[in-house]
Protein backbone atom coordinates (compact mmCIF):
# COMPACT_ATOMS: atom_id res chain seq x y z
CA UNK A 1 0.00 0.00 0.00
CA UNK A 2 1.51 3.31 -0.98
CA UNK A 3 1.72 6.35 1.18
CA UNK A 4 -1.03 8.23 -0.67
CA UNK A 5 -3.69 5.63 -0.02
CA UNK A 6 -2.60 5.49 3.57
CA UNK A 7 -2.85 9.25 3.89
CA UNK A 8 -6.29 8.96 2.37
CA UNK A 9 -7.71 6.35 4.74
CA UNK A 10 -6.32 7.56 8.06
CA UNK A 11 -8.56 10.67 8.25
CA UNK A 12 -11.59 8.54 7.42
CA UNK A 13 -10.76 6.06 10.15
CA UNK A 14 -9.99 8.83 12.65
CA UNK A 15 -13.39 10.33 12.00
CA UNK A 16 -14.98 6.93 12.51
CA UNK A 17 -13.06 6.61 15.79
CA UNK A 18 -14.79 9.73 17.00
CA UNK A 19 -18.11 7.98 16.45
CA UNK A 20 -16.84 4.93 18.34
CA UNK A 21 -15.81 7.14 21.26
CA UNK A 22 -19.12 8.95 21.22
CA UNK A 23 -21.03 5.65 21.32
CA UNK A 24 -18.81 4.33 24.10
CA UNK A 25 -19.10 7.46 26.17
CA UNK A 26 -22.88 7.82 25.84
CA UNK A 27 -23.50 4.14 26.52
CA UNK A 28 -21.30 4.10 29.59
CA UNK A 29 -22.91 7.27 30.98
CA UNK A 30 -26.45 5.98 30.41
CA UNK A 31 -25.35 2.51 31.46
CA UNK A 32 -24.04 3.91 34.74
CA UNK A 33 -27.28 5.77 35.43
CA UNK A 34 -29.27 2.62 34.67
CA UNK A 35 -26.77 0.60 36.72
CA UNK A 36 -27.14 2.76 39.84
CA UNK A 37 -30.94 2.56 39.64
CA UNK A 38 -31.01 -1.17 38.97
CA UNK A 39 -28.46 -1.80 41.75
CA UNK A 40 -30.66 0.11 44.22
CA UNK A 41 -33.66 -1.89 43.04
CA UNK A 42 -31.74 -5.15 43.45
CA UNK A 43 -30.69 -4.46 47.02
CA UNK A 44 -34.23 -3.52 48.03
CA UNK A 45 -35.56 -5.46 51.00
CA UNK A 46 -38.83 -5.79 49.11
CA UNK A 47 -38.52 -9.14 47.31
CA UNK A 48 -40.87 -8.17 44.49
CA UNK A 49 -38.98 -4.96 43.69
CA UNK A 50 -35.65 -6.78 43.90
CA UNK A 51 -36.90 -9.43 41.50
CA UNK A 52 -37.57 -6.77 38.85
CA UNK A 53 -33.90 -5.81 38.98
CA UNK A 54 -32.84 -9.42 38.86
CA UNK A 55 -35.05 -10.01 35.83
CA UNK A 56 -33.40 -7.11 34.06
CA UNK A 57 -29.86 -8.39 34.57
CA UNK A 58 -30.99 -11.93 33.81
CA UNK A 59 -32.28 -10.91 30.37
CA UNK A 60 -29.60 -8.47 29.31
CA UNK A 61 -26.58 -10.32 30.65
CA UNK A 62 -27.95 -13.64 29.53
CA UNK A 63 -28.47 -12.93 25.83
CA UNK A 64 -25.94 -11.78 23.20
CA UNK A 65 -25.55 -8.04 22.75
CA UNK A 66 -25.64 -8.56 18.98
CA UNK A 67 -29.05 -10.20 19.29
CA UNK A 68 -30.30 -7.33 21.46
CA UNK A 69 -29.17 -4.82 18.84
CA UNK A 70 -30.98 -6.81 16.11
CA UNK A 71 -34.17 -6.80 18.17
CA UNK A 72 -34.03 -3.03 18.72
CA UNK A 73 -33.16 -2.20 15.12
CA UNK A 74 -34.78 -4.89 12.99
CA UNK A 75 -37.37 -6.26 15.39
CA UNK A 76 -38.98 -3.15 16.86
CA UNK A 77 -40.37 -1.79 13.55
CA UNK A 78 -42.57 -4.90 13.46
CA UNK A 79 -44.34 -3.64 16.59
CA UNK A 80 -44.50 -0.09 15.31
CA UNK A 81 -41.36 1.35 16.87
CA UNK A 82 -38.84 2.45 14.32
CA UNK A 83 -35.45 3.50 15.59
CA UNK A 84 -32.61 5.03 13.64
CA UNK A 85 -29.44 3.00 13.76
CA UNK A 86 -27.94 5.61 16.11
CA UNK A 87 -30.91 5.38 18.49
CA UNK A 88 -30.94 1.60 18.39
CA UNK A 89 -27.18 1.53 18.98
CA UNK A 90 -27.25 3.83 22.00
CA UNK A 91 -30.31 2.19 23.54
CA UNK A 92 -28.94 -1.30 22.97
CA UNK A 93 -25.47 -0.56 24.27
CA UNK A 94 -26.73 1.44 27.29
CA UNK A 95 -29.24 -1.17 28.38
CA UNK A 96 -26.70 -3.93 28.02
CA UNK A 97 -24.01 -1.99 29.82
CA UNK A 98 -26.54 -1.07 32.51
CA UNK A 99 -26.98 -4.74 33.34
CA UNK A 100 -23.24 -5.20 33.93
CA UNK A 101 -22.93 -1.86 35.74
CA UNK A 102 -25.78 -2.81 38.06
CA UNK A 103 -23.83 -5.87 39.21
CA UNK A 104 -20.62 -3.87 39.58
CA UNK A 105 -22.33 -1.14 41.62
CA UNK A 106 -24.27 -3.62 43.71
CA UNK A 107 -20.97 -5.29 44.57
CA UNK A 108 -19.54 -1.89 45.51
CA UNK A 109 -22.46 -1.14 47.83
CA UNK A 110 -22.29 -4.58 49.47
CA UNK A 111 -18.60 -4.01 50.16
CA UNK A 112 -19.35 -1.02 52.41
CA UNK A 113 -19.03 -1.80 56.10
CA UNK A 114 -22.36 -2.10 57.87
CA UNK A 115 -21.06 0.29 60.54
CA UNK A 116 -21.38 3.06 57.95
CA UNK A 117 -25.11 2.42 57.67
CA UNK A 118 -25.43 2.27 61.45
CA UNK A 119 -23.54 5.51 62.01
CA UNK A 120 -25.72 7.22 59.41
CA UNK A 121 -28.90 5.88 60.95
CA UNK A 122 -27.82 6.93 64.43
CA UNK A 123 -27.16 10.45 63.10
CA UNK A 124 -30.68 10.64 61.69
CA UNK A 125 -29.94 10.18 57.97
CA UNK A 126 -32.72 8.91 55.74
CA UNK A 127 -32.00 5.89 53.54
CA UNK A 128 -31.65 8.17 50.53
CA UNK A 129 -29.25 10.53 52.35
CA UNK A 130 -27.19 7.56 53.53
CA UNK A 131 -26.86 6.27 49.99
CA UNK A 132 -26.12 9.63 48.43
CA UNK A 133 -23.69 11.06 50.97
CA UNK A 134 -22.08 8.04 52.59
CA UNK A 135 -22.47 4.77 50.71
CA UNK A 136 -22.33 5.60 47.00
CA UNK A 137 -19.29 7.92 47.29
CA UNK A 138 -17.39 5.09 48.97
CA UNK A 139 -18.74 2.48 46.57
CA UNK A 140 -17.59 4.75 43.73
CA UNK A 141 -13.97 4.25 44.65
CA UNK A 142 -14.38 0.51 44.91
CA UNK A 143 -16.01 0.21 41.50
CA UNK A 144 -13.49 2.29 39.55
CA UNK A 145 -11.37 -0.71 38.42
CA UNK A 146 -14.33 -2.82 37.21
CA UNK A 147 -15.95 0.24 35.62
CA UNK A 148 -12.67 0.83 33.80
CA UNK A 149 -12.88 -2.72 32.53
CA UNK A 150 -16.45 -2.17 31.43
CA UNK A 151 -15.42 0.99 29.59
CA UNK A 152 -12.62 -0.80 27.75
CA UNK A 153 -14.97 -3.65 26.86
CA UNK A 154 -17.50 -1.11 25.60
CA UNK A 155 -14.98 0.53 23.26
CA UNK A 156 -14.61 -2.84 21.55
CA UNK A 157 -18.28 -3.85 21.83
CA UNK A 158 -19.35 -0.76 19.91
CA UNK A 159 -17.97 -2.56 16.85
CA UNK A 160 -21.07 -4.78 17.01
CA UNK A 161 -23.28 -1.87 15.98
CA UNK A 162 -21.63 -2.01 12.54
CA UNK A 163 -24.11 -4.83 11.99
CA UNK A 164 -27.05 -2.43 12.27
CA UNK A 165 -25.67 -0.01 9.71
CA UNK A 166 -23.89 2.31 12.12
CA UNK A 167 -20.78 3.82 10.67
CA UNK A 168 -18.29 3.43 13.44
CA UNK A 169 -14.67 2.43 13.24
CA UNK A 170 -14.92 -1.22 12.25
CA UNK A 171 -17.57 -0.63 9.60
CA UNK A 172 -15.55 2.21 8.07
CA UNK A 173 -12.57 -0.11 7.93
CA UNK A 174 -14.69 -2.75 6.18
CA UNK A 175 -15.90 -0.24 3.63
CA UNK A 176 -12.34 0.92 2.95
CA UNK A 177 -11.28 -2.69 2.47
CA UNK A 178 -14.04 -3.22 -0.11
CA UNK A 179 -13.27 0.04 -1.90
CA UNK A 180 -9.51 -0.34 -2.03
CA UNK A 181 -9.29 -4.06 -2.40
CA UNK A 182 -6.56 -3.93 0.20
CA UNK A 183 -7.62 -6.12 3.14
CA UNK A 184 -4.67 -5.64 5.43
CA UNK A 185 -3.91 -1.92 5.61
CA UNK A 186 -7.24 -0.54 6.87
CA UNK A 187 -7.66 -3.39 9.37
CA UNK A 188 -4.18 -2.91 10.80
CA UNK A 189 -4.65 0.81 11.17
CA UNK A 190 -8.04 0.15 12.75
CA UNK A 191 -6.50 -2.27 15.24
CA UNK A 192 -3.95 0.41 16.12
CA UNK A 193 -6.72 2.95 16.67
CA UNK A 194 -8.62 0.59 19.00
CA UNK A 195 -5.39 -0.06 20.90
CA UNK A 196 -4.73 3.65 21.14
CA UNK A 197 -8.20 4.31 22.56
CA UNK A 198 -8.08 1.46 25.07
CA UNK A 199 -4.59 2.51 26.16
CA UNK A 200 -5.62 6.13 26.68
CA UNK A 201 -8.66 5.12 28.72
CA UNK A 202 -6.73 2.56 30.74
CA UNK A 203 -4.36 5.29 31.85
CA UNK A 204 -7.21 7.73 32.50
CA UNK A 205 -8.83 5.19 34.83
CA UNK A 206 -5.52 4.48 36.58
CA UNK A 207 -5.12 8.16 37.27
CA UNK A 208 -8.67 8.44 38.64
CA UNK A 209 -7.88 5.48 40.86
CA UNK A 210 -4.73 7.20 42.13
CA UNK A 211 -6.57 10.46 42.76
CA UNK A 212 -9.25 8.69 44.77
CA UNK A 213 -6.79 6.81 46.92
CA UNK A 214 -6.19 9.83 49.13
CA UNK A 215 -8.10 8.21 51.94
Amino acid at each position, binding site marked *: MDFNTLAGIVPILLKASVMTLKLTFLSVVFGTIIGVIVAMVKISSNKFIASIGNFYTWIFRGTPLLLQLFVFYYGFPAVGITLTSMQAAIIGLSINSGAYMAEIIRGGILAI*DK*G*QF*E*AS*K*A*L*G*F*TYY*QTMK*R*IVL*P*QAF*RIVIPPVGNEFIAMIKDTSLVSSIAMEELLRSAGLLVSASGNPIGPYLITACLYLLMTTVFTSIFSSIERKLS*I*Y
Partner: protein
Amino acid sequence: MNMIETKGLTKIFGELKVFENIDVHVKKGEVLVIIGPSGSGKSTFLRCLNHLETPNGGHVAIEEETLDSTNKKHLRKVIEKMGMVFQNFNLFPHMTVLQNVMEAPITVKKENKEIVIERAKKLIDKVGLSEKFSEYPSKLSGGQKQRVAIARALCMEPDIMLFDEPTSALDPELVGEVLNVMKNLAKEGMTMIVVTHEMGFAREVADRVIFMDGGKIVEQGTPEDIFKNPKEQRTKVFLQKIL
Protein backbone atom coordinates in the same frame (compact mmCIF):
# COMPACT_ATOMS: atom_id res chain seq x y z
CA MET B 1 -38.39 14.40 83.73
CA ASN B 2 -36.94 11.12 82.52
CA MET B 3 -34.68 11.66 79.54
CA ILE B 4 -34.90 7.97 78.72
CA GLU B 5 -37.41 5.46 79.88
CA THR B 6 -37.77 1.85 78.83
CA LYS B 7 -40.64 -0.35 79.87
CA GLY B 8 -40.67 -4.10 79.38
CA LEU B 9 -38.06 -3.79 76.66
CA THR B 10 -37.39 -7.16 75.06
CA LYS B 11 -35.16 -8.27 72.21
CA ILE B 12 -35.18 -11.71 70.66
CA PHE B 13 -32.95 -12.92 67.81
CA GLY B 14 -34.68 -15.98 66.42
CA GLU B 15 -34.65 -18.44 69.32
CA LEU B 16 -32.30 -16.38 71.43
CA LYS B 17 -33.75 -14.06 74.04
CA VAL B 18 -31.08 -11.35 74.27
CA PHE B 19 -32.83 -9.54 77.09
CA GLU B 20 -36.30 -9.44 78.49
CA ASN B 21 -38.49 -6.95 80.30
CA ILE B 22 -35.89 -4.31 80.94
CA ASP B 23 -37.13 -1.21 82.76
CA VAL B 24 -34.66 1.63 82.94
CA HIS B 25 -35.05 5.33 83.70
CA VAL B 26 -32.37 7.91 83.15
CA LYS B 27 -32.74 11.43 84.45
CA LYS B 28 -31.39 14.58 82.88
CA GLY B 29 -27.67 14.91 83.49
CA GLU B 30 -27.35 11.41 84.85
CA VAL B 31 -24.46 9.16 83.83
CA LEU B 32 -25.53 5.55 83.70
CA VAL B 33 -22.86 2.91 83.19
CA ILE B 34 -23.87 -0.59 82.16
CA ILE B 35 -21.43 -3.39 82.92
CA GLY B 36 -21.63 -7.12 82.52
CA PRO B 37 -20.03 -10.11 80.83
CA SER B 38 -20.04 -10.29 77.02
CA GLY B 39 -23.26 -11.76 75.75
CA SER B 40 -25.18 -10.27 78.66
CA GLY B 41 -27.25 -8.16 76.25
CA LYS B 42 -25.91 -4.78 77.32
CA SER B 43 -24.79 -3.62 73.86
CA THR B 44 -27.99 -4.82 72.24
CA PHE B 45 -29.96 -3.00 74.91
CA LEU B 46 -28.11 0.22 74.08
CA ARG B 47 -28.69 -0.33 70.36
CA CYS B 48 -32.41 -0.76 71.00
CA LEU B 49 -32.55 2.69 72.57
CA ASN B 50 -32.00 4.37 69.21
CA HIS B 51 -33.58 1.52 67.28
CA LEU B 52 -30.42 0.31 65.54
CA GLU B 53 -32.05 -2.91 66.67
CA THR B 54 -35.81 -2.94 66.69
CA PRO B 55 -37.08 -4.25 70.01
CA ASN B 56 -39.56 -7.13 69.94
CA GLY B 57 -41.51 -5.94 72.92
CA GLY B 58 -41.95 -3.07 75.33
CA HIS B 59 -41.17 0.52 74.49
CA VAL B 60 -38.54 3.23 74.61
CA ALA B 61 -39.43 6.84 75.34
CA ILE B 62 -37.01 9.71 74.86
CA GLU B 63 -38.02 12.87 76.69
CA GLU B 64 -41.44 11.32 77.02
CA GLU B 65 -41.81 10.71 73.30
CA THR B 66 -42.29 7.04 72.51
CA LEU B 67 -40.27 5.60 69.64
CA ASP B 68 -42.53 4.12 67.04
CA SER B 69 -40.77 2.07 64.39
CA THR B 70 -43.73 2.29 62.03
CA ASN B 71 -43.44 6.06 61.82
CA LYS B 72 -40.02 6.51 60.24
CA LYS B 73 -40.09 10.28 60.13
CA HIS B 74 -40.99 10.70 63.77
CA LEU B 75 -38.50 7.99 64.71
CA ARG B 76 -35.66 9.88 62.99
CA LYS B 77 -36.64 13.08 64.80
CA VAL B 78 -36.47 11.37 68.18
CA ILE B 79 -33.26 9.50 67.33
CA GLU B 80 -31.61 12.84 66.51
CA LYS B 81 -31.75 13.67 70.20
CA MET B 82 -29.32 10.84 70.90
CA GLY B 83 -25.70 10.82 69.81
CA MET B 84 -24.05 7.45 69.50
CA VAL B 85 -20.41 6.44 69.74
CA PHE B 86 -19.47 2.99 68.46
CA GLN B 87 -16.78 0.54 69.40
CA ASN B 88 -15.38 0.66 65.86
CA PHE B 89 -15.74 4.44 65.44
CA ASN B 90 -17.56 4.16 62.10
CA LEU B 91 -16.16 7.44 60.86
CA PHE B 92 -16.85 8.24 57.22
CA PRO B 93 -13.53 7.33 55.58
CA HIS B 94 -14.09 9.46 52.47
CA MET B 95 -14.44 12.66 54.48
CA THR B 96 -11.92 14.71 56.40
CA VAL B 97 -12.22 15.17 60.16
CA LEU B 98 -14.03 18.49 59.69
CA GLN B 99 -16.37 17.06 57.04
CA ASN B 100 -17.19 14.09 59.26
CA VAL B 101 -18.26 16.39 62.06
CA MET B 102 -20.17 18.80 59.80
CA GLU B 103 -21.98 16.28 57.66
CA ALA B 104 -25.03 15.35 59.73
CA PRO B 105 -26.17 18.83 60.84
CA ILE B 106 -26.02 20.03 57.24
CA THR B 107 -27.54 16.97 55.57
CA VAL B 108 -30.03 15.97 58.24
CA LYS B 109 -30.95 19.21 59.96
CA LYS B 110 -30.35 21.46 56.95
CA GLU B 111 -28.47 23.89 59.14
CA ASN B 112 -26.58 26.86 57.79
CA LYS B 113 -23.11 25.77 56.69
CA GLU B 114 -21.21 28.70 58.21
CA ILE B 115 -22.77 28.12 61.62
CA VAL B 116 -22.04 24.40 61.47
CA ILE B 117 -18.39 24.96 60.47
CA GLU B 118 -17.97 27.26 63.44
CA ARG B 119 -19.51 24.73 65.83
CA ALA B 120 -17.66 21.76 64.31
CA LYS B 121 -14.32 23.52 64.70
CA LYS B 122 -15.04 24.29 68.34
CA LEU B 123 -15.97 20.68 69.02
CA ILE B 124 -12.89 19.29 67.26
CA ASP B 125 -10.84 21.73 69.30
CA LYS B 126 -12.59 20.57 72.44
CA VAL B 127 -11.59 16.95 71.81
CA GLY B 128 -8.03 18.16 71.23
CA LEU B 129 -7.73 17.64 67.49
CA SER B 130 -7.66 21.13 66.05
CA GLU B 131 -4.44 20.24 64.20
CA LYS B 132 -6.28 17.49 62.33
CA PHE B 133 -9.17 19.35 60.67
CA SER B 134 -8.24 18.31 57.16
CA GLU B 135 -6.88 14.83 57.82
CA TYR B 136 -8.70 11.74 56.64
CA PRO B 137 -9.62 9.18 59.31
CA SER B 138 -7.12 6.66 57.92
CA LYS B 139 -4.34 8.97 59.10
CA LEU B 140 -5.54 9.03 62.71
CA SER B 141 -4.85 6.74 65.66
CA GLY B 142 -7.72 4.81 67.21
CA GLY B 143 -8.00 7.25 70.10
CA GLN B 144 -8.08 10.19 67.73
CA LYS B 145 -10.73 8.50 65.60
CA GLN B 146 -12.90 7.92 68.62
CA ARG B 147 -12.55 11.54 69.70
CA VAL B 148 -13.62 12.66 66.22
CA ALA B 149 -16.58 10.28 66.49
CA ILE B 150 -17.57 11.93 69.77
CA ALA B 151 -17.29 15.39 68.19
CA ARG B 152 -19.36 14.18 65.25
CA ALA B 153 -22.14 13.00 67.56
CA LEU B 154 -22.00 16.21 69.61
CA CYS B 155 -22.29 18.43 66.54
CA MET B 156 -25.91 17.26 66.22
CA GLU B 157 -26.42 18.88 69.64
CA PRO B 158 -27.93 15.79 71.23
CA ASP B 159 -29.53 15.73 74.68
CA ILE B 160 -28.27 12.23 75.35
CA MET B 161 -25.06 10.42 74.44
CA LEU B 162 -24.89 6.65 74.04
CA PHE B 163 -21.48 4.98 74.20
CA ASP B 164 -21.18 1.39 73.02
CA GLU B 165 -17.88 0.06 74.41
CA PRO B 166 -16.07 3.15 73.14
CA THR B 167 -12.61 2.06 74.27
CA SER B 168 -12.75 -1.68 73.60
CA ALA B 169 -11.07 -1.44 70.19
CA LEU B 170 -8.28 0.83 71.41
CA ASP B 171 -4.70 0.10 72.34
CA PRO B 172 -4.40 0.43 76.12
CA GLU B 173 -2.31 3.60 75.96
CA LEU B 174 -5.03 5.36 73.92
CA VAL B 175 -7.92 4.59 76.26
CA GLY B 176 -7.20 7.50 78.61
CA GLU B 177 -7.56 10.26 76.03
CA VAL B 178 -11.05 9.03 75.09
CA LEU B 179 -12.16 8.56 78.69
CA ASN B 180 -10.99 12.10 79.48
CA VAL B 181 -13.20 13.54 76.78
CA MET B 182 -16.10 11.51 78.19
CA LYS B 183 -15.38 12.66 81.73
CA ASN B 184 -15.45 16.29 80.65
CA LEU B 185 -18.71 15.69 78.89
CA ALA B 186 -20.19 14.20 82.05
CA LYS B 187 -18.99 17.21 84.05
CA GLU B 188 -20.79 19.52 81.64
CA GLY B 189 -24.01 17.77 82.56
CA MET B 190 -24.54 15.59 79.50
CA THR B 191 -26.95 12.72 80.02
CA MET B 192 -24.96 9.61 79.19
CA ILE B 193 -25.44 5.88 78.94
CA VAL B 194 -22.14 4.05 78.69
CA VAL B 195 -21.61 0.37 78.04
CA THR B 196 -18.04 -0.33 79.05
CA HIS B 197 -15.49 -2.62 80.64
CA GLU B 198 -13.62 0.35 82.12
CA MET B 199 -14.40 -0.11 85.81
CA GLY B 200 -12.22 2.84 86.78
CA PHE B 201 -14.35 5.09 84.63
CA ALA B 202 -17.56 3.59 86.04
CA ARG B 203 -16.39 4.22 89.61
CA GLU B 204 -15.27 7.73 88.99
CA VAL B 205 -17.92 9.09 86.64
CA ALA B 206 -21.09 7.03 86.94
CA ASP B 207 -24.04 8.26 88.98
CA ARG B 208 -25.51 4.80 88.71
CA VAL B 209 -24.18 1.42 87.63
CA ILE B 210 -26.26 -1.39 86.21
CA PHE B 211 -24.90 -4.92 86.19
CA MET B 212 -26.49 -7.01 83.44
CA ASP B 213 -26.14 -10.73 82.98
CA GLY B 214 -28.09 -13.26 80.97
CA GLY B 215 -30.41 -10.62 79.53
CA LYS B 216 -31.51 -9.29 82.89
CA ILE B 217 -30.60 -6.47 85.22
CA VAL B 218 -29.05 -8.36 88.08
CA GLU B 219 -28.28 -5.40 90.25
CA GLN B 220 -28.07 -1.65 90.13
CA GLY B 221 -26.93 1.13 92.41
CA THR B 222 -24.32 3.77 92.96
CA PRO B 223 -20.74 2.82 92.03
CA GLU B 224 -20.14 2.54 95.79
CA ASP B 225 -22.94 -0.03 96.16
CA ILE B 226 -21.92 -2.11 93.18
CA PHE B 227 -18.17 -2.12 93.54
CA LYS B 228 -17.83 -2.17 97.34
CA ASN B 229 -20.92 -4.00 98.53
CA PRO B 230 -22.41 -6.04 95.70
CA LYS B 231 -25.46 -7.91 96.95
CA GLU B 232 -25.80 -10.52 94.27
CA GLN B 233 -23.50 -13.49 93.94
CA ARG B 234 -23.29 -13.06 90.14
CA THR B 235 -22.12 -9.48 90.52
CA LYS B 236 -19.46 -10.55 93.00
CA VAL B 237 -18.18 -13.28 90.68
CA PHE B 238 -18.05 -10.93 87.71
CA LEU B 239 -16.23 -8.20 89.62
CA GLN B 240 -13.72 -10.64 91.05
CA LYS B 241 -12.88 -11.82 87.54
CA ILE B 242 -12.49 -8.40 86.06
CA LEU B 243 -10.90 -6.37 88.88
